[in-house]
């Protein structure tokens, strides 16, 4: 069984007090409790402070381009659907640059577990608005305040009938750990939007701000009721729900691809002779 030591990666380059630390801690504890070893999963990340995450975890890692986590993760998962595949991205990465990919990953229902470190600001580029920045927030780049409506990723995911939709909070690690475990164990595409204070650039959505607002979704809440889920997901402002907002049992993409029913692509072996025989067999059709 793995221990926390097995997950000791590189030293994080995050700011002291960064919400990412809480997420990292919850993640490692969740994986130790799940009994998953570092070589048994792959994290695909993009670009942003959050995307340095896999370097600090110790695992198979593809730290790709800004916004492109989900296509890479989809490719990894299709090549080897016995491998647990996670995607880690920030709000700018996943909701801005990679918005199109998110929509289609949800549609496919590829079994990738997406964790969005949502700090409602661009940290790496030093403090511009992100798609989830609240309307009116003033930054150096938005001197008149954010004019666009704040994206609600939870409502969007439910609208696309996403298979698992949850929100966590970096300041509530015990609760977050549970969500991570639920997401990993869920069959299908999972999105966990993690509210994450940015101590350097976001002085609106602070630990104190979130602390006054987040609450655990009631224990009698039924996350399989889609209409109720829309209502729950729309809550924002004075009270912000965290927990599993919506889930369903849609069949996964991998289940519906017949050629990998028995064996993952990467385990389907062949050699030169087989390939020559295939070429000859197909080439007969040209006569």
């Amino acid at each position, binding site marked *: 069984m793995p221990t926390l030591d097995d997950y000791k990666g590189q030293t994080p380059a995050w700011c002291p007090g960064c919400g990412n630390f809480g997420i990292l801690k919850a993640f490692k504890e969740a994986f130790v409790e799940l009994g998953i070893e570092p070589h048994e999963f792959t994290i695909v990340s993009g670009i942003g402070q959050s995307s340095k995450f896999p370097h600090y975890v110790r695992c198979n890692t593809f730290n790709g381009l800004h916004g492109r986590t989900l296509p890479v993760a989809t490719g990894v998962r299709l090549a080897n659907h016995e491998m647990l595949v996670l995607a880690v991205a920030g709000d700018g990465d996943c909701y801005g640059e990679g918005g199109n990919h998110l929509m*289609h990953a949800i549609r496919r229902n590829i079994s990738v577990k997406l964790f969005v470190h949502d700090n409602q600001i661009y940290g790496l580029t030093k403090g511009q608005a992100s798609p989830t920045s609240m309307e009116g927030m003033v930054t150096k780049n938005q001197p008149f305040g954010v004019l666009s409506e704040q994206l609600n990723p939870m409502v969007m995911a439910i609208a696309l009938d996403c298979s698992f939709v949850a929100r966590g909070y970096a300041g509530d690690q015990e609760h977050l750990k549970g969500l991570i475990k639920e997401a990993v164990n869920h069959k299908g595409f999972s999105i966990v939007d993690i509210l994450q204070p940015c101590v350097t650039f976001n002085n609106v959505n602070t630990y104190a701000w979130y602390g006054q607002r987040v609450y655990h979704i009631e224990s009698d809440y039924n996350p399989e009721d889609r209409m109720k889920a829309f209502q729950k997901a729309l809550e924002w402002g004075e009270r912000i729900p965290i927990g599993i907002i919506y889930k369903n049992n849609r069949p996964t993409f991998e289940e519906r691809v017949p050629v*990998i029913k028995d064996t993952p692509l*990467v385990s389907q072996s062949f050699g030169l002779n087989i*390939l020559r025989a295939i070429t000859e067999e197909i080439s007969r059709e040209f006569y």
Partner: protein
Amino acid sequence: MVGQEVFLEYSIKIGGEAGQGIQTIGDTLARVFSRSGYHVFTHQDYESRIRGGHNFYQIRLSDKPAAASRDRIDILVALDRESILFHERELTDSGIAIYDSSTLNETHEKPQFLDIPFKELAIKSGGDRIMANTVATGAVLGMLGLDTEILFEILKDTLKKKGEDVLKANKKAAIAGHGFVIKNCLQCSFSIIPISKPKMLVGVNEAIGLGAIGSGCKFYSAYPMTPSTGIMLYIAGKAKEYGIIVEQAEDEIAAINMALGASFAGVRSMTGSSGGGFALMVEGLSLAAMTETPIVIALAQRPAPATGFPTRTEQADLLFALHAGHGEFPRVIFAPGTPEQALYLTNKAFDISQKYQIPVFILTDQYLADSQWTVEGIDLERLVYNDYRIRGDELKKLSEYKRHAFTENGISPFAVPGDSRHLVVTDSDEHDEEGHITEDGLIRMKMVNKRLFKKLPFIKGEISSPYLYGNSSPDIVITGWGSTYGVMKETVDALSKNEKIAMLHFSEVYPLSSIDKFDYLNILGRAKMTICVENNATGQFAQLIRAETGYEFHRRINRYDGRPFTLEAFLGELNAHVG
């Protein structure tokens, strides 16, 4: 000039609106001829629309190898008025146009026109008007004096799913067209008979698809874009049988990133597009380079900028493919000129891409991608497959594993994540040997040296010499790359009696092959007239040769009207230079 030698050769053009079934007639006739043992070359010209407009399908059959289309045609199948308006003048002296006056609502009294009631004969045969195409196909065979036996075999294959009644009616329709012509085409002077055993008829997109499957490609993700879509469709058609995942991505950015994800996970992967779609893939190309993830990219060119001429042809993305991607990294570009080259070079693309963990391009264009050629057969011995991954026990027994380890030849061990307890880590950021982000300048330099300088000489060593065809110490050298192969080769054939002429064709265009293997610069240097032939405006290959070798061609022939070079037109243009 062409035609001086006596050999049997005819060109047939089927013209009409999109949706009229030109391709069905063309494909069927081409197959009848290849099965009859003839050499066949086909090419298509179509507009960017689903119905209407004017399109054509041209077939050349010959008892000698055919590698390009002719400007003169012997039989014109006119399914619309435009076919006659645009192509009547292309008819040879003995050429004949067939049409259905009831469809075109016009009658032509000239002796080279034959009015055949395609529609009426189709309905009389027990079918509907769509079977007029089968009547026309039968009629063409009748004009050529070829019987309908091979056509019936083909109909049996293609109509398998439609049931016995449909097949019967189609056979009847073919006989009706065939019989009508035998009775009424007194001016038909053509005559062909089956001459040898059937030949293979292969399209270039199909050859690339087959080459990929035969190289162990297990993952193809792309976004549809003319003229590259045929590759995806071909592989998708074989996906179930041969265990391949073909995923239509939401955009080209996703397409290349998915392919890279699959490749990272240990599966041979490919993507394809045309210029505009590839433009979106460019950051992914750079990602492939930085993460040293193998990928094969088919880039089927069409005229640009922007949407350009979506269904037409051009060779104007060579320098784009060469320079695409931010940063400095190695790449290989192949540009096949025939289906055989397309097949073997796709195979080589996979091998080199896996061996050196680099991106490899297969550059075609619409003319070539949509063309079909007869092929004598596939030499299976030429296909290679080497598994360059470390797997199984070999990986497990390593005491440590570093995905980007520094090595003598710059190639780091490629392990499959999950295969062992060793972690496979890579990063689009500059990284250390393990694959973790680094800010260290020295490591950066060592990584650049590893990825680029150490690999380059080995990669260059893999590249085959250009193909010199014709005179071995020529006065005139026509040089080109990719799709101009056919027209250049036939030009050499046509002129070699009177001129010391040769073709120098590059199908492995970048990096250029070493002159130690074959000193093509010496051949060029000694020639009196060297001409670089390109289907683009600025002579991109000539620029590449100059940049890489300092050699400047004496002349350039460029065509950039979106149409391919045809034999007579090219000979005319060449004459203007050679005199």
